């Protein structure tokens, strides 16, 4: 089954990381991604720019409406994701728990709806 693992964290906290901690975090993500690729479960994953760079788009009565910022103002925001293809929810949970961001923020595990 495929699952999208959404990495949610407090952006302000991430922004205030000093260079050393930031690099250490990136290195951890590198190790995680390598490990999962070797295991054969990784189907994709990216880091996202912060919500300050987000544009929200909606169409109402045929008109395209834009707003600056994320679709919802919440303390934690999606900062990145991994797409994994694994056996079941237990394996997805196990993988999610290994994402470095799980220790500071949280990971939302969403099964992909097969079409």
């Amino acid at each position, binding site marked *: 089954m495929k699952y999208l693992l959404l990495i949610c964290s407090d952006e302000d906290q991430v922004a205030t990381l000093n260079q050393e901690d930031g690099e250490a975090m990136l290195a951890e993500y590198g190790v995680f991604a390598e490990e999962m690729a070797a295991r054969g479960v990784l189907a994709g994953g990216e880091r996202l720019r912060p919500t300050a760079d987000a544009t929200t788009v909606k169409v109402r009565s045929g008109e395209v409406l834009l707003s600056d910022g994320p679709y919802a103002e919440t303390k934690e925001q999606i900062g990145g994701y991994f797409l994994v293809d694994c056996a079941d*929810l*237990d394996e997805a949970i196990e993988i999610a728990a290994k994402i470095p961001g799980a220790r500071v923020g949280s990971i939302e595990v969403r099964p992909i709806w097969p079409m």
Partner: protein
Amino acid sequence: MTTPFEAEVTEVFHREWGRVVATLIRRTGDWDLAEDSAQEAFVIAVERWRRDGIPASPGGWLTATALNRAIDRLRRAAMGRQKLRDLAAMMPGPDTPDPDESGIVDDRLRLIFTCCHPALALDARVALTLRSLAGLTTSEIARAFLVTDATMAKRLVRAKAKIAHTGIPYRVPPAHLLAERTTGVLAVIYLLFNEGYEASTGADLVRAGLCDEATRLGRTLTELMPDEPEVLGLLALLLFHDSRRAGRVDASGDLVPLDEQDRTRWNAAAITEAETVLDRALRLGRPGPYQTQAAIAACHATAADAAATDWAQIAGLYGELGRMTGSPVVELNRAVAVAMADGPQAGLRLVDGLADSGALRDYRLLAATQADLLRRLGRRDEAAEAYRRAIDLAGNERERRFLIRRLSEVAAPARP
């Protein structure tokens, strides 16, 4: 009146429902189909068995019949190739050995671990366990949890949908997850028991029935996991609690404190069984919170009268339990035991320490315990104030009545 035949069929239902549903879910992968087919099989069984007698292996008969009903239902509904493929996979054959016969995992164990999966909301885990494993109807569960049938039906539908959509595996967890998940299963059973125990009065029979369901599930689990000391510990704990059921409330439905209970009304057979089960658990040499709680319950259950209770031993056990769980509620219980062993002053010191830590602010039993200890120390004004706080926080009407009675005792003008 229940005839012997009806009583036996009811017994078979309790014993076999979970097994039939569990096997059907494994074979069909469809929870609703499994439940509907099991239901149908039981209806057929009542008719057939009334005429022919109950077969030697009623469980096998019911599973085979339910499987046939499921195949029939699928056949009727089969429209595309997918359904027919499902059907082919279900057909009994050499490639689908019956796990009970081949000595592999009991399907009921798969079912209970799936029902109690931590990705499901706690209330959903409880409801699903009662429906699938214990065989309660949706409205019985709704009444037990004081919600409408529609709410409960929705809860069950959503839980089953989450299992199907998110890929919650139908299995006994692998070794590295087993301990943690077993703790989760035990928590669901204990919660179920407590729901019933809190409400165990004559007027609330449906909820009181939850105690029986929880004990039955606990017993089943000890059959399925005979070497897990905490599984045994939980069953012992439930049996000890349950043994006091008849003595807990008086004729008018009021709560009777432990030290005032008529011990001849306690269920001696349940106490003996509990002791045997606890003994088995302790001999496995892996202590845990349920075993410790059962050991505390044993101290109460085996004391000849309230005065003979070994409070020092109980205080020591609560200390152990506190180290395992880090729970302030356990510390409160230890304070009560210390008060009994070393006097109310020693107990009150611990309770006041807890109150100052703020960990149990607004916890009704903290105020009630303070009130009781102050009353025993003769500090009537402070006791009255604590009783008033406890009354504001009281959990149910019976508890409130008990506290009001105590308040009137300490608030009454002192006799000259």
